[in-house]
């Protein structure tokens, strides 16, 4: 297991370094950044805020990582958040308890995931188009549920999910870390992770090897819908109301960005949920540094863009190939020359 831990650490090292750099920037513009206080039975501090405010993106990127690993994408998660939030609000307003509201929201999220999954896995519609349908229609559905208003509620239990604390730690932090851990263990301690990767890398080969790719594809969209539903409930609980128009707006793009910053290829295959979660924290830290520096928020997008470009350059095939050649030439010293020749991909096939 030590070996596995080391491999994980090597995988997420770039993301950890980027996160450390951005957190350091936070510290430079605001020296009290790392100060954490315990007041009114609750942890306070800017670092706590980063973890707390980053919860929706973090939750979304758990499911999004799996979807992207299958070579897919889920554009509907922002809209599903709105639907789930509206469902939960509607249920507590109608007098049901917060447990029922949560289960209702999750059920709706799973239904959305099932819809996406069936479109992708059975009707073979391209994921970007298939999920675009719900991205557009989803907000309409949410508006139908809230009947066009911002549906506010005062249910303590539900509000606790978004604004409350457990043992002094804000609930959203516990939820995203907990869910992240459960899903990571769930895919890595079973064969699910490897099979999902196999589908993403080569679905035809996977099918011939006897993998049930359809069921797996539907499953990853179900997980994505589930995560979006939880994120939707947290956002609604945080503002004590369901806003069909703005809840989760553009968050699907942040989630995709978190997955990409996490070093996961949009072409599918190898994935790391942990790295995506760190990616989500990086995005939130960038938001934080802009806020704390007193710079106008317009800069947020530009700086975000700079970070993405930096990461994409590191990930680009050209740079990767150069790194690969470096590594291969280092390895080839240990191997016999003929083997080294085998390791170097032929130029002609590279085009």
């Amino acid at each position, binding site marked *: 297991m030590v070996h596995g831990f080391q491999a994980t650490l090597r995988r997420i090292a770039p993301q950890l370094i980027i996160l450390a750099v951005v957190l350091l920037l936070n510290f430079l513009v605001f020296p009290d950044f790392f100060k954490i206080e315990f007041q009114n039975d609750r942890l306070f501090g800017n670092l706590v805020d980063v973890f707390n405010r980053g919860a929706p993106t973090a939750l979304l990127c758990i499911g999004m990582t799996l979807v992207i690993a299958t070579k897919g994408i889920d554009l509907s998660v922002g809209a599903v958040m709105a639907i789930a939030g509206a469902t939960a609000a509607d249920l507590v307003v109608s007098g049901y308890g917060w447990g029922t509201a949560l289960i209702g929201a999750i059920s709706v999220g799973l239904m959305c995931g099932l819809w996406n999954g069936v479109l992708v896995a059975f009707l073979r519609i391209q994921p970007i188009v298939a999920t675009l349908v719900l991205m557009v229609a989803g907000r309409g559905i949410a508006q139908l549920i809230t009947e066009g208003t911002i549906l506010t509620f005062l249910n303590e239990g539900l509000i606790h999910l978004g604004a409350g604390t457990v043992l002094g730690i804000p609930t959203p932090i516990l939820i995203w870390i907990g869910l992240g851990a459960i899903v990571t263990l769930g895919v890595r*301690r*079973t*064969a*699910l992770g*490897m*099979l999902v*990767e*196999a589908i993403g*890398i*080569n679905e*035809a*080969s*996977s*099918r*011939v*090897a*006897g*993998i*049930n790719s359809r069921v*797996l594809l539907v499953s990853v969209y179900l997980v994505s819908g589930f995560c979006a539903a939880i994120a939707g409930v947290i956002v609604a609980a945080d503002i004590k109301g369901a806003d069909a128009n703005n809840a989760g707006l553009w968050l699907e793009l942040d989630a995709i960005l978190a997955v990409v910053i996490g070093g996961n290829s949009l072409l599918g*295959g*190898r994935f790391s949920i942990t790295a995506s979660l760190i990616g989500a924290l990086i995005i939130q830290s960038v938001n934080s540094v802009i806020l704390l520096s007193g710079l106008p928020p317009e800069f947020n997008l530009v700086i975000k863009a700079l970070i993405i470009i930096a990461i994409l350059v590191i990930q680009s095939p050209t740079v990767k190939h150069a790194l690969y050649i470096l590594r291969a030439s280092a*390895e080839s010293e240990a*191997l016999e020359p003929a*083997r080294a*020749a*085998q*390791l*170097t*991909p*032929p130029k*002609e096939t590279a085009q």
Partner: protein
Amino acid sequence: MTEGTRPVLSCTGISKFFPGAIALDEVDLTLYSGEVHALLGENGAGKSTLIKCITGAYRRDAGTIHLQGQAVSPTSTKESQALGIGTVYQEVNLLPNLTVAENLFLGRQPTRFGLVSYSRMQTETARILKDYGLAINPAEPLSSYSVAVQQVVAIARAVELSGKVLILDEPTASLDREEVELLFSVINKLKARGLAIVFITHFLDQVFEISDRATVLRNGRVVGTRELAQASQTDIIHLMLGRQLESRIQERAPAKSGKPLLELNNFGRKGTVDPFNLTIHEGEVVGLAGLLGSGRTETANLIFGVVPADQGEAKLRGKTISLANPRQAVGHRFGLCPEDRKTEGIVGDLSVRENIILALQARQGWFRPLARAKVNELAEAYVKTLDIRLASLDMPIRFLSGGNQQKALLARWLATNPDFLILDEPTRGIDVGAHAEIIALIERLREKGMALLVASSELEELVAYSTRVIVLKDRRQVDELTGGQISTGNIVKAIAAETNREVA
């Protein structure tokens, strides 16, 4: 007419190596002025590699090319074009949205005061195309004409640019009979103009119709060059499919087949494979022989459910079973090593270890992961028994050579302990050493009582390991050879006999 004159193009000792495989092994090719020279061979024989080496798309690793006595070494297709070697591919690579004239003159438009002179371009185009027997409007977009006409325009462009050697890579693949006639009349005109023409195709009838000589490649080597006036179709098929291993069959002990394992009755799919009956017994190797496009791969895929059958029934040990998808086939302890290793076999970015256990894990279901120790034990055992050469089990499988990838795929299925293994072109594109090992493995598996179905274009190989050979032609079974009947000669006869019957 072709004898005695000086060759236009002569290639000697062309070799090309790919990692782990020899694509071309000292290939010689000589072209004379005014001849149509067919280049023949099954898929993977090295035809397109040879063409790419001649046109400079690939850099050759050894050998010389002389064009009209001058040693040349083009490093790009553009350079070879300037030297006089033009190529036309099956998929016309012109720009369909431009006009015929623009396509013909692209990159060298006639100008007047620095501006393109469209009128001159169009009159020139009309004049040039008239020589090719085409009276079409040069100002129309190319896409408004049929593929055959586009093909001729592409030829005209290649000839105008080059003018010494013309290489036609499967030009007739998507043409109907009449269009082929048009193309052949153009080829004959160019022949009369003294061009040396290389004609690549899978249609033997067309080869005999238009070509003067034929060179046959197999496994990257020239197995023979023949004057077609003095050769028969059977001779050429013989050359393409080989017959050197003939003597081996006498050494083999007579097959002792076990109980029937899989029975296919009236099994088929419309438009893919005609319904057939086939019974496969334990401990036998059934070979599938036939030319390219005869339905070998389609039959293998049908039995494994990759492309499900739409008629007939399958019985496993007497019980009717469903083979609607590969998962069901895997569940019945079937295995399939597909023809196209890269797109349907390996999962390139997964490690060798993961690739080996993939099918076993898939059959076991995602919820019951194989224990790490068991995975390592399996992977290491197969790496050892199959002699898979690798730096580490953790390396992505796409970095292995073709032969080692194939062995890893075999390991994937052997790990599932199959009763029935389908191998589609198990030795294609792999080096000689691995080739022999895989053939030996097939024998070993048969002796252990496994049932195997092997599709191959290598007849001598089929003869070496098959206990029974099914001959396919035009997607249906035309013959079955057993025991002493199995020889490359008989297989070739079965294929050719059927050809003649159809022509008649």
